[in-house]
């Protein structure tokens, strides 16, 4: 088959076409997920000043945790700081579109929610935002997954995913881990 240099290069070209086909299949699947299913990485380029978070309306202590916003959207707001999430337990409903908004007043953190596709870096200066729908109920682990200092290993929160029927926000739309409603 491969006798002269032309034949060799032709066989390499044939192989390159096979390779190109496989790469194309993967790219098309990714494009489909992005456009038709809206599956994208968390790319919310929204600025917030880490030095004045405590003065902001959104990330003051009283506004952290899960709240059903006036427009009906379920939003969980957290601060990621050395070395805890505030609050360190949040309640969210399953099978409902939810939004998580997190920021850091100090160093780079990150988080994932075990068993789900929720994963984001938390960069001081930005509000990290993830939209998702939880498919299963239970107490999920939410560790900080980016090295943030000596206490990094202990930095962990809980995401309590409850059936929609058990998700009862109180007055003001707020719900915390303490009250299961």
């Amino acid at each position, binding site marked *: *088959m*491969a*006798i002269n240099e032309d034949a060799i290069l032709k*066989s390499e070209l044939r*192989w390159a076409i*096979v*390779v190109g086909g*496989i790469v194309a*299949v*993967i790219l098309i*699947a990714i494009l489909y*997920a992005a456009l038709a*299913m*809206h*599956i*994208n990485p*968390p790319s919310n380029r929204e600025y917030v000043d880490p030095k004045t978070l405590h003065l902001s309306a959104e990330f003051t202590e009283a506004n952290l945790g899960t709240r059903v916003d006036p427009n009906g959207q379920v939003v969980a707001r957290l601060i990621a700081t050395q070395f805890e999430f505030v609050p360190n337990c949040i309640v969210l409903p399953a099978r409902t579109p939810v939004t998580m908004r997190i920021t850091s007043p100090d160093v780079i953190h990150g988080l994932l929610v075990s*068993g*789900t*596709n*929720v*994963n984001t870096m938390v960069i001081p200066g930005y509000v990290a935002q*993830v*939209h*998702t*729908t*939880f*498919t299963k109920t239970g107490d999920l682990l939410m560790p900080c997954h980016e090295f943030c200092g000596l206490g990094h290993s202990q930095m962990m929160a809980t995401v309590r995913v409850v059936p929609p029927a058990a998700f009862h926000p109180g007055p003001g739309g707020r719900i915390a881990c303490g009250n299961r409603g």
Partner: protein
Amino acid sequence: MIEPSYPVTAHDYSSDAEELGSLEDALEEAPRGALVVSGIAVGLLMIGWLGMYFLVFLPRGPVG
């Protein structure tokens, strides 16, 4: 090609210019075997990727 003045042992693998058989004959058959082996390897990779995509990633819920 190196022609050392002492006997070459099997240890001189890096300076080996043995070419035991016929290059022409080998070129008749090649690259059939390589196509099959590489094709299987890359095919498995693609199946693996599709498997992860449909069976692990998508069931974990939409995210954006």
